[in-house]
Structures are given as C-alpha cells and as structure tokens.
C-alpha cells in the first residue's frame, strides 16, 4: 500500500543542518501493523509526520496505492489526509473546548458528512470504544486512558485506510497502555493498516513488523514472528 523510496529530510537552522531522514526506503502492505523504533532523534517522528503529510521531505518518493503524494499541493494534501488517514498522538491532542462527542465528530465535519450520518457514525464508534457514558464530557474530565480511547475513536471514525500512531501509550500507565494496544490490534485484525512509532519494545511486540531507525537510516527490519504466527 505504501512505497517510500530514498526519502530525505534535512532541518536547517542558521548555523547547522541536521539530516533527520537519510535515504529511507520502506514498504507497508495493506493490513499490516508496523512499528518504527529507535533512539531519540533518530527520525521516527519525522518519518511519521512525512507519512501523515504533516511535513515535506527534501527529496524521494512517497506512493500511496500508486499515487505519488509528494507532488500534491497543500490543499490536495489536506484533502488526501482527511479522506485516508487517522492519527493517534502521545498527548492525545483533543480539543479542550469540545466534548467527547464533538471531538470525534470533527473529522467527519471536515469530510463534509451530513449531520444525521455523522451522528450515527459517532455513536457507533463511541459504543465500540466503550465510552458511551462519557460522550458529553470535556477532555479534562477524563482519565488519560479514556482520553486516548477518544483520540483513537476520532482517528477511526472516518474509517481511514491508514492509522498513524505516535507513541500512543507514552502518557499512559501500563494497564491503560495495554488497553490501547489491544484496541489497536483489534482494529488491525479488522483490516486497518497501522504504522506506529514507539520507544517501547513491549508495545512493538503487538505489531507484525518492527523497523529500526538510527541517525535517519533504516538499520534493521524484523518480522514479529509470534504475532505473525498468532495471526495465521
């Protein structure tokens, strides 16, 4: 589904240039759950931002189901993103001024879904995520685990082809963290492609494949046998 080739990204300040991504080549198949790991500053988050069209690389190619995405202009990138991708962040990134229901509804509004249809979709996902009794609450009134559930619900409500997760358990205790990981696995089993950046090898163990980055290079790729076998 995703073919990334020779991707390069350089951060420039007045005095120094930092190469965040240095000739990255990655392929992700449809239905795969891929973890990206590596030490701080290796380029994981940059890679995820580029994959999510939040950042532009200097060079390389990024094909999504044969569509070259790096040639798109800002408006086309926005449109592509909202139709095909969902995001889950470490710090949840819920809008404090909106209720749980309204937060989840937001991507549907940007996708110009009719109000009745929106209501139906949001209610479905709220039920699935087991947060029905929280739908009128504001983010500050929820626990971290609950907030991340809402964030996952928001990422999934548009039924995206690809979910990008940036350290989704980073701000959670282990029980809430496991809950979220199980949720992601469940989604993956239902066919959603997931790319996750993480520091935690425990979290990575939930995925099919682990890509290790260092200094902007892919240094290793490992198929997670346990998980693959489990799948078979």
């Amino acid at each position, binding site marked *: 589904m995703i073919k990334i080739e020779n991707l390069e990204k350089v951060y420039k300040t007045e005095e120094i240039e930092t190469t965040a991504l240095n000739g990255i080549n990655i392929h992700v198949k449809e239905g795969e759950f891929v973890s990206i790991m590596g030490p701080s500053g290796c380029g994981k988050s940059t890679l995820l931002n580029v994959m999510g069209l*939040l950042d532009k690389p200097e060079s390389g190619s990024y094909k999504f189901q044969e569509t070259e995405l790096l040639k798109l202009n800002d408006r086309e990138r926005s*449109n592509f993103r909202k139709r095909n991708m969902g995001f889950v962040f470490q*710090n949840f990134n819920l809008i*404090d001024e909106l209720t749980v229901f*309204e937060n989840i509804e937001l*991507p549907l509004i940007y996708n110009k879904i009719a109000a009745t249809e929106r209501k139906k979709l949001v209610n479905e996902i709220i039920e699935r995520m087991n947060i029905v009794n929280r739908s009128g609450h504001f983010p500050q009134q929820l626990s971290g685990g609950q907030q991340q559930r809402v964030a996952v619900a928001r990422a999934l409500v548009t039924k995206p082809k690809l979910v990008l997760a940036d350290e989704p358990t980073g701000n959670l205790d282990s029980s809430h963290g496991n809950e979220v990981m199980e949720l992601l696995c469940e989604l993956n089993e239902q066919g959603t492609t997931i790319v996750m950046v993480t520091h935690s090898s425990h979290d990575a163990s939930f995925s099919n494949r682990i890509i290790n980055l260092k200094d902007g290079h892919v240094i290793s790729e490992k198929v997670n046998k346990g998980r693959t076998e489990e799948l078979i």
Partner: protein
Amino acid sequence: MFKLNLKIALRNLWKHKSYTFINVAGLTIGMASCILIFIFIRYHLSFDEQFANKDRIFRMVTYWKYTEGEEFQRGTPRPLPAAVRNDFSEVEQAGAIQGSGGILKIRDESGKEKIKTAEDVYYVEPQFFKIFDYKWLQGDPQQALSNPNTVALSEKMATRFFGDWRKAVGQTINFQNKTDLKVTGVFENVPENSSIPLKVVISYAGYTNPNLRKWGSVSSSSQCYVLLKAGTELVQMQAQLRAFAKKYNSDKEVGERKYFLQPLREIHHDERYGSGRGTMPMKQIWGLGIIGLFLLITACINFINLATAQAIGRSKEVGVRKVMGSLRSQLMVQFLTETLTITVFAVLLACAVTELALPGMASLFRGNVTFSLFAHPVIFVFLFGLVLLVSFLAGFYPALVISGFNPALAIKNKISSASSGGVGLRKALVIVQFSITVILIIATLVVLKQMNYMREKSLGFNPSAVALVDVPSDSLSLERYAGLKERVLKLPGVLHASFCSASPSSDSNNMDNFSFETSKERDFQVNTKQADEDYFKTFGLKIIAGKPLSKSDTLKEYVINETMLRKLNIPDPQQAIGKYLNISGDQKAQVVGVVKDFNNLNLREAISPIALSSSKIRSTTLAVKLQSGALMSTMPAIEKTWNDVFPEHVYGAVFMEDEIGRYYEGEQVMGTLFKVFAGTIIFISFIGLFGLISFIAAQRTREVAIRKVLGASNLELVHMLNGSFLAMVFVANLVACPLAYIFASKWLSGYTYRIELSIWPFLIAMLVSVVITLITVSVRSYQTALKNPVDALKYE
C-alpha cells in the same frame, strides 16, 4: 461547521474570562465613543441639506480687506438683493432676509389680550421662498408675503397662538404694540438642523430702516440668499462680483470691500462668517473624527495584542484541526468568526452605552440638539460597517498568524512565542497605542489650560454681577427710561445702572466708516457703541485720558479706546482729546476721553478700534451692576419694576458672565469632549496593558521560578518583567511629544490671546503614562514574583 466554530469561540471566551472582559470592555467603550461621535458628526453634516436646490443656493457675504487686517461679515448692505436681481442674468432668484425681534400679541375674540411674547422674527422677501422649498401647509408664499403687514407662521407657532394651525390664516397678530399683522400662511416646522430657524416670517414689504438704501452700512442681520441658474460658472460669477462691488461702493471707503457667494452647505461650518446660531467648523468635525478613529485603533490594538499573545495557547487546537484536514482558509474563517462574535457582542453593548450617554451628550450641547440612536437608518449602516471594520482590523492579523502554524510543531506544543509571530509587532502596537494616549493627554491639558486662561484673563472690564436687561426702544418707551433707571437704582442690592446699545463685549457689533480730523475716510472701520454716562462705572472701565461721556440723550461727544489711538498713530492719549471724529459721514463730535482697552469680541479675536457715544434712541439694554451677594434677591425686584414700567412689553434678562461664557461654548464643549475621550483612551490602553502583562507574566512563570531558585529577589523579578514596558512607554513619549507639539501650536495659533506652550503638559503626560504603566504592570509582576517557584516547576 459554523455552529461548531461558534461553540468553540464561545467556550474559549468563557474559559479566558478575564481576557474576554478586557477585549469586550475595550471594544465596547471604543465603539460606543465612535457611535456617539458619528451621531454628532452626522447631525452637523446634515445642516441645510433638506432643500431641493441646495447645490445652487448661496449666501452673499461681505468681506473687507484693510491695510491692517480683514473683516468677514455675513450681512450685506440692504439695497444689495435688488441690485443682484437687476445686475446678474446668472441669478435665478435673490431674496433678502432681515433678522429682527419684538413683542407679539394675540387677542381673543372679545379683544382681550391672550398671548404676549417676545420672539425672533424675520422680514423675508417672497423670492426667498423660491430659493428654499419650505413646505407650506396653508397659503402661497409668493402671494402671502407680497403685501406689507402680512405674516406667515410655522406650524408650531400657529398652533401655539391659535390652538390649531388650521385656524391661523386670516387672524391678526399685533407686533411691537404698533402694527397689526395679518396671518396669510402657515409652513411646516423648520428642522433643528437648519441655519435659518424661521418661526415668524413678516413680509419684507413692510420693513423700514433708515439704512434701507445705504450701501455703506452693513449689519449681520441683513442677509441675502441667491439661487444660481444651473450650470453657472462660479469662478466667472465671483469675477463679476468684483465689478459689482466697485460699482456700488462709495469712493470714500478706503478699505477694499468684496462680496462673495458662500455655498449653503458651508454656512454651518464657516466660523469666519458665522450663521447666527452657532457654527461647527469642519476642523473640529475632523478633529472629533480622528479622535474616534484613535479610540477604535486603541481598542483594536488591545484585541490584536491579546489575541496574538494567546495564540500559543491555541496552537494545539490549530494543529489538531490541520491534522484532521482543515485548510488554512477554514481556520482563518474560524478565527475571524470568533472576532466577529466578540465584535457583535461589543457593538450591542456599545449601543446600550450610547443610549445611556446620549442625555449627557445632549446636555453638553445645551439641549439644542436631540440625538437618537435609532432615528436615522444611516446609523445602522454605520454600525454594520463598524462591526466589519473592527472584526477585520482586530481579527485579521491574529487569524493570519494562528492559522499559519506548522501542524507538526503545533500538535507537540512546540510553537514558541517568537514563532507565534508578533513579539516585535506587539511592541510596535503598544508603542502606537501609548503614543496616541500621550498625544491625547497633552492635547487635553493644552485645551483645558487655554480655556482656563480665557476664563481668567482680564477682559479689561468687570463682567461679574452685571445683569443685562432688555429695554424696548419705541418712542413711548424711551420717555419712561429715566423713570425706570431711577426706580431700579433705588432697589436694594443695585450699585449702578446704564442704558447702552451693547455690553463692552458683545457678539452684536456695528462697524462703521469714519473720518478723524480731516474729511478723508480712514482705511479701517470703527466699532461703535452707544452708552450713557454711567456705562463706565457699571462695567468698571478705566478712563486713561480726558473724561467719560457726560449726560446726553443724543450724540454729543466720543470716548475712544487705546487701539483706536494706536491705529490713528497718536502716541499720547491727551493729543486725541478735543479732536473731531465723524462716523458714517453724519455723526460728528469731539473726542472727550480715552478708555483703556477692553475685549469687545471673544479672545480668539483682537480688540477693535472702538468709539463710544451717547444715543438714547439706540439703547437696547439696561445694564445693572449688582452687589455680588444680592443677585438672587434683586433680580425679581428688577423684573417687577420693569413690568410696572413697560406693562405692554415682555421682560428678558441675562447675566453678562453667562453671555461671555456663551462665546466659549465651542471651546467648553471641545474641552469636555477631550476630557471624556482622553479618559476613555487611557482606560482602554491600560486595561489592554494589564491584559498583556498578565499574559506575559503567565508565560514567564517558569522562567521566573527558575530565576528565583537561582537567587533572584522579588524586586529584581518585578524589575525584569517591567523593564520592557517602561522602555516602550518611553519610546511612545518620544514619538508623541513632537506630534502633540505640532498639533497644539497649530490649534493655539487660532487664538489671538493664548497661553505660551510650556514643557509642563509634556512632562505631565510623560509622568502620567509612566506612573500608570508602572502601577498596572507592577501589580501583576509582583503577584507572579511572589509565587512559590516549586509549584511552577512542578507544574511544568
């Protein structure tokens, strides 16, 4: 989407209540001031706009150029209207209007006197009504006013006199206890915003005056209006008027006399000629407009500063929205919606504030003006425009900044105050805001000081506790003058009394040509005043040579002033005594005294050359000097005595000091407006400042905590937080002072008698701005400095 944006906007406003309050309060007050100023300006620009031919209507005015100085006169010689009709083919109509006043008496059917009242009246030629399309309810102006001794009334007057205006035509009104006038027409009430307040219009055919055929005598109450034919070239017409002036002017007149056509719509705004009922110069209208704009800009600056300062707090929301696919334009719309929400809310509050302030404003303008927020649809257009303008001014820049955040940085809260844009811009805006504030503080101080100076400057006579009582001047009344004066002088509390044509300082002045010693007319005119022998005592005028006027009912001798001596090049006052002065060619008498200069006009203007003489027949006023503590008790006694002496006339009196106060009504109004608006701008600026320092203090909480842990004292921390603000205020003062100096000198140059522009207003403004800034900023910084650093660091 709009609903959701609105929801976010409202919740955000609620969450940051204190900033919302600052924004809304600033905008509300700024906009309310703008609305008030707009209502005021609209009223003054609407003067004389109601006539169909307004673009072709002009008032003829007279102008003299002397070797020294010039004179502007709204009146024209009485024979002029007929001559204009005769000499100019370009003139479609020309009509004379002669202002006057007198006693009107209405009797009931049995012949008993029903109403007796003193009213302003106008003698008007029928042609006047071809120029101005007043709506006539009954009668036809061309016939109604063609015969002598006919009168037309406004609807209100007709109703007042006869109960129902429909019954007025055919009735009789007695005028000045002499003439019976027949009512031949009723016209619609003339609106308040009209330079010619017609109420009682008498046929010009019945007007008599010894100067009716004299070109040499010009009175401001004799005016002429003309309607030019469509397509007339004004430049050409003015050239012809020069020839016209030459044709009719006396060869003896040394000063050069010109006639000009003054467009109707300039009458209300040209203070050189005046309108007889107060003018509002365009420069004052502009001044107010600029103050309005300043207020608006100041309020918008608060908004921009707080919005960009708050922007960092919104960065996560922006990031999330962008990740979800929001376009930059959608975000801009969202933030502009928020600004619009606040602005609409503020404009509604501003309307309420305006309604509350309108009575105050009406009383500031002495109730002559009725203001209403909802009477004129154009006000709604203005409000709509105001909302759009403010939303755009205040909302556009913050929306541009906030919507431009990089989503990858925004979602990780990595937007710094530097990248949120506008640290430099915020500083620049604060400097602009403070400069405006400082300019207004200086302007207010200068205006108030000049007003104070005018109030306290010695006028050269003593106006305190002098009552000016009107007296009738018909032959029957003249015979009773001596009796009246005798009885008034006997009243307890009365010190002196004098019959005169006008008080020393008066807005009704006669200027005449004259010759001194030789028969050749001089190249300047003299202001003539008639007074009896007690005039000097009554007003405390000082004789510096010779003696005051002696008792006489007719012209016997002259007393002249120092300015007259100077203009005649007579160095020693004694040299003037015994010389002959001939005014208007037929009033010749010896100069017997020289009076010390006194201000005969307002202090904007220089003192005129003056000649005082006795003439009982030209008296219009009995000036009564009272004991200062006895005003209240003596005035009713004077009124009673007066009514005993002139039972068929109507009593009227004013105090000299009130009359003088009236000359400076414009300045007083300006002074009050400056005080109010300067106060408002100071308030807006400083709540904005408070908001900004609160925000900055909150942002720097962590830095403050770290510094404190490292050993900084509270005072050092307050100093650190205040430093940049004090620097900004200082720069603002540097910018403001030269500008204020230019404005103030220009304004003061309009006054002949004015204060010297000292350094004090500038120092005071600087001190005020620095002290208020220091207080505002320190309160907030100190609170921040006092916080326990552990809390701040733990929180972070």
